[in-house]
């Protein structure tokens, strides 16, 4: 595990406005998840909450390289993807609380946020369930010549699902503009992936003729640069791409997963949090490179915090859907 920002990397060609936008988006996801955790533990949020904390650099780095009209599919650990693709915080929180004003009118909840306006085809609570959907969206993009691409986010747990290999095969045969982004946070729910993954992950994709790269998923600039290249290749007709991001889930599988020492140590968690926090790594770099001083970054955080408080208040005050809405939206 590296413990500091890689100084050997060429100076970033991302302009400072964009860098600060990425930082802002990352802190937004971190604080969003803190609020989700708080709402959940105060019994204000029903159901389950799978937090994205620790993995922010992947969603932000990849989505920063996308066009607004590009597609994404997300996962049960999907709040970060939705926010990174441009979801409004107030409607996100409203959905998490099951309110009418939520993105899905309260019918989807935390694990199913979807939004056509930001190209979000939906978070999916079947592990690996959205791989066909992302690939199909890429088929449409190619057929209609829209120039769009589709990004399929999934975790290392989904590497065990056969669907991935079926659709990668087709995407490669048909040269579809889809990027499979694997967030390898080391754990399939409560099981270390050394127990679940045989062989080499990148080789699996390359076996289908899919170009595959790996990246430090805690380094948002590294993620952005490699994602940008893969997305441009896919958009230019180069077919599907595969990106493996090494990362870590700072919290449990879900909020209620408190006692975790039977599958991972507190020391391991602490090491990632102190040495490999994507926000700390990025803020340290921003200050060192004089892109922003600590005061500026604190201001960004304070602004985002205020925005989140407002969004939570909106969600809390919003009404639940009327019970007679239960059988609406079954059929279009």
């Amino acid at each position: 595990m590296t413990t500091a920002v890689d100084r050997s990397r060429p100076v970033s060609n991302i302009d400072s406005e964009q860098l600060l936008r990425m930082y802002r988006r990352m802190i937004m996801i971190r604080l969003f998840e803190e609020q989700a955790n708080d709402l959940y533990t105060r019994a204000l949020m029903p159901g389950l909450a799978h937090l994205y904390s620790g993995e922010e650099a992947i969603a932000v780095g990849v989505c920063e390289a996308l066009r607004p009209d590009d597609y994404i599919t997300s996962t049960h650990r999907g709040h970060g993807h939705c926010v990174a693709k441009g979801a409004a915080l107030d409607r996100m929180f409203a959905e998490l609380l099951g309110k009418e004003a939520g993105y899905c009118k309260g019918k989807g909840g935390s694990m199913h946020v979807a939004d056509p306006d930001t190209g979000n085809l939906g978070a999916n609570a079947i592990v690996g369930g959205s791989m066909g959907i992302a690939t199909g969206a890429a088929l449409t993009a190619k057929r209609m010549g829209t120039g769009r691409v589709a990004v399929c986010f999934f975790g290392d747990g989904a590497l065990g699902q056969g669907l991935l290999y079926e659709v990668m095969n087709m995407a490669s045969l048909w040269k579809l503009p889809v990027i499979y982004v694997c967030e390898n946070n080391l754990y399939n729910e409560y099981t270390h992936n050394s127990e679940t993954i045989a062989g080499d992950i990148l080789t699996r994709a390359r076996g289908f003729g899919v170009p595959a790269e790996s990246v430090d998923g805690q380094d948002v600039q590294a993620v952005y640069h490699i994602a940008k290249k893969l997305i441009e290749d896919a958009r230019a007709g180069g077919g599907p791409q595969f990106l493996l991001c090494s990362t870590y889930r700072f919290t449990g599988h879900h909020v209620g997963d408190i006692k975790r020492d039977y599958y991972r140590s507190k020391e391991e968690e602490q090491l990632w949090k102190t040495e490999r926090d994507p926000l700390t790594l990025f803020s340290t770099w921003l200050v060192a490179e004089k892109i922003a001083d600590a005061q500026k970054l604190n201001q960004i955080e304070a602004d985002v915090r205020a925005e989140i408080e407002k969004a939570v208040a909106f969600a809390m005050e919003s009404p639940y859907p009327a019970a007679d809405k239960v059988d609406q939206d079954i059929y279009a």
Partner: protein
Amino acid sequence: MPETQTAVRELTIGEAIKETLAEEMRRDPTVFILGEDVAEAGTVYKVLSGLVDEFGPERVLDTPISEAGFAGVAVGAAMTGMRPIVDIMFGDFIGLTMDQMVNQAAKIHYMSGGKWKVPMVMRATIGATRRSAAQHSQSLHAWLCHIPGLKVVMPSTPYDAKGLWKTAIRDDNPVVIFEDKMMYRLKGPVPEGEYTIPFGVADIKRPGEDLTIVATSSMVQVALGAARLLEEYDINAEVIDPRTLWPLDEKTLIESARKTSRVIVMDEGYGRYGVNAELASVIAEGAFYDLEAPVKRIGAMHVPIPFSPPLEDATVPTEQSVLEAALALCGKS
């Protein structure tokens, strides 16, 4: 002979399906077909033969043998502006697509609060007696009838096949069409050109007063044959085809049951927990006080479909078995 714009020809069900797909693909460039051996092979029953010549391999797209994968691709394509038709070679293979159909296609509209739509059609087969054994002969349509968000269509005539297929392709929801593999060569009148049949409207295939036989797909012809046999016993049977299992035209079934007071329901799926159970229940709830006898269910025997012909033939309802059940129901056995 005067010129007419809606000449009526005799077509087989297979020909009617192919004509409909061709018309819809000409009308709407977003309609395309994907599945195993759909292009040059035209599927194993040759129903799609020739379509690739007119529409090309991108719109009649041969896939790998990956039912889950291409069903999932269809869901994503449908959400983003295409109207895919997913061809499942044998209905027995829908098990491989179940997550995509049940957890994805059926639920995306609801889970997204009505924002995403999934306008796709899946076609699959039902029907035994083709000596294809336990994994190529089942009638598993009840599985999909169980899921809110899906529509399930079962045409029994060439005319119905064309009208129902047009409606399915134009529907903004996932629709599953089950075709009886033994009926592709059944002939019947089909008007040229444009007509649609709305979902949720049953068709009275034969009017009668003494007994109602509700029959689906492959069982419609069996029911009509039994009805002809029943004439000799002065029993005039009404045969009703629901045509779509969901939405279901409950009203027509109940009205017929109230009129005749005796009902047989016939579907080639398994009897237990199946389509017959639902049809019988709808009728019992809606016409209980008008019934002279309990609703009789006739379906496939509750066994895996065997290979050996005398064994397989014993698993499916026949005109004779319907006749016997009808006579018993009418107190004439």
